[in-house]
């Protein structure tokens, strides 16, 4: 009788410790989750800022200006364009 009591007591203690352990784990996972959520938000915001930056750099007005002044590009005159027709059938 006293043996079974002892075993039950052990089991009880074991499960109590398990509870503490799992509670602790839940907490730490939750903290980790929170951290990752914050990180995701921050990355999302950063992505938005990068998008904005890219949009600003790729602004057609700017590209136009750079192409004309720095790179010296021009629209080729019509006489210098040759149109090739690619036919699918041989």
């Amino acid at each position, binding site marked *: 009788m006293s043996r079974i009591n002892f075993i039950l007591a052990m089991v009880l203690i074991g499960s109590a410790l398990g509870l503490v352990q799992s509670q602790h784990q839940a907490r730490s996972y939750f903290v980790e989750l929170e951290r990752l959520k914050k990180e995701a938000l921050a990355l999302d915001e950063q992505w938005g800022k990068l998008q*904005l930056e890219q*949009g600003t750099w*790729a*602004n*057609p*007005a700017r590209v*136009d200006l750079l192409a004309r002044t720095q790179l010296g590009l021009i629209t080729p005159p*019509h006489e210098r364009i040759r*149109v090739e027709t690619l036919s699918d059938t041989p």
Partner: protein
Amino acid sequence: MNYHSRKLLKLNLAPWRMATVAALLLTGFGVVAGRAFYLQGLNTDYLQGKGNAVANRNLTLPAHRGMVLDRNGQLLAISTPVESLWARAQELKLSPQQHAQLAKVLDISPQELSRQFKRRSRGEFSVRRPVTPEQAVKIAAMGAPGLVLRREYRRYYPAGEVAAHVVGFTNVDDLGQEGVERAYQDWLAGRAGERQVMRDRKGNAIRDLAPIKTAQMGGNLALSLDLKIQYLAHRELAAAIDKHKAKGGSVVVLDAKTGEILALANQPHFNPNNRRNYEPGPMRNRAVIDTFEPGSTIKPFVAAAVLERGLYRPDSVIDTPETWRVGNKLVRDVHPHPQMTVTEIIQKSSNVGSVKMAMTLSPQQYWETLHRSGFGQRPGSGFPGETAGRLRDPATWRPVEHATLAYGYGMSVSLLQLARAYMAFANDGEVMPLSFLRREPQEVIGERVFSPAVAREVRSMMEAVTQEGGTGTRTRVPGYRVAGKTGTAHKLVDGRYAPDRYLSSFIGMAPASDPRLIIGVVIDEPSGAVYYGGSVAGPVFAQVMSGSLRQLGLPPDAPETATKVTQDSTRAGGGA
């Protein structure tokens, strides 16, 4: 055990002393128990509330407004977080050094800063919104009590003034005020979420107390605009306005096959990123909201109406004297020819010929053609403030009005409406519903306005406009066949037609063999020596068209020899 039997343990105490101690102890216990009962039992709600207030928090989950993109995914509008500086009046305590430092960071004088702080003595107020990221770092490093940095979303428009009239803008509260931002407010707006959490001593969330209401981010929107074509339209229009010292103007580029609006530019323009100088005038999307009398650009519809009823054929010859009297009104041609075919009437933009053709129709018949083409009705683009123009009931037309309507006076249209109506000629008689949003070609169902045969006949007449002898020779695009119609209308000023104020316009399409693009250009009051639609609006059309055709990679449809364009093959054609 028997206490009384042991000598050592025998207490020689008076019973009253024992009773006193026992009573004191019991009272003590009683007080503690009572207090515990009071706190735990009676006052529990209040105290639990206080405890929760310290540990539990309701957090709002921010939701930002969706992005606006062009058809190729180029960014047109985005919400991005910025910091703004707020102050809590009661907690605000800055040392003199801190005060000076903050003034320096904000780039204002210390006196100015003091004035701002004194504005309110209670609650929170904003000091600067937004602050730059560098300023935010410096302010945070000061760690001054009472200064709070708050995160807010701000809307940016990387395309700036180029797409401003279509995209529109939002106000401080993130509500769309103009353009697409207003039309699709419900879709773009985000809905903030909420969660209840328990926090630890350091303020980290440790447990969710209630199901999370997730934030709904605003939807992204892909517009039908092509930013490159849009930029081209904006640039060429601005250059033309400058060159001809005009008051304003608009350009519309439509995809003839799908009804999508590929570009829409207006002058004067505004910069949506900087709205400190608020002026409603430049913000108006003239191409959609303003109306004008279409002038000669209405003539192809007269031709279509008479061809459709079999009254004329494209090569029918009509006597066209220099002047022609209808009632007490004398209709006059600028470049008279004694006889013209229907094609030549369109090509040379003859008022007399057009009036004679229109007078063979009953008012009801002519009205019916115009109505079917969409005049007097909203073009249905969904743009806020879109105008229907004006087309009066045919029962009220007097003969003079019937005649002037044949060359585009007595009715009013918006540029978008006119370009939409030209879709019938470009698309073998079918008009596609307009759209500011990108869509797949298979999902649109057109509306038949003219038969394919009539549409093609009118289109080839309009092609003659751009050829030798036409009014629109400056609208040619090397390598492509172009069809279109010029318009030069006197402006109505104080109820009279001003002899020296014009609206020059050109609506055209290319490649004429199977038009893919329709471009409408209108220039308001060119004040230089030239004012004819073909010479003022025509070159803008040609520039935008050639760039757009190249952008879309459409194969040329004109034989090489026929496209040799000499620099000065430009004869300013007539056409009032």
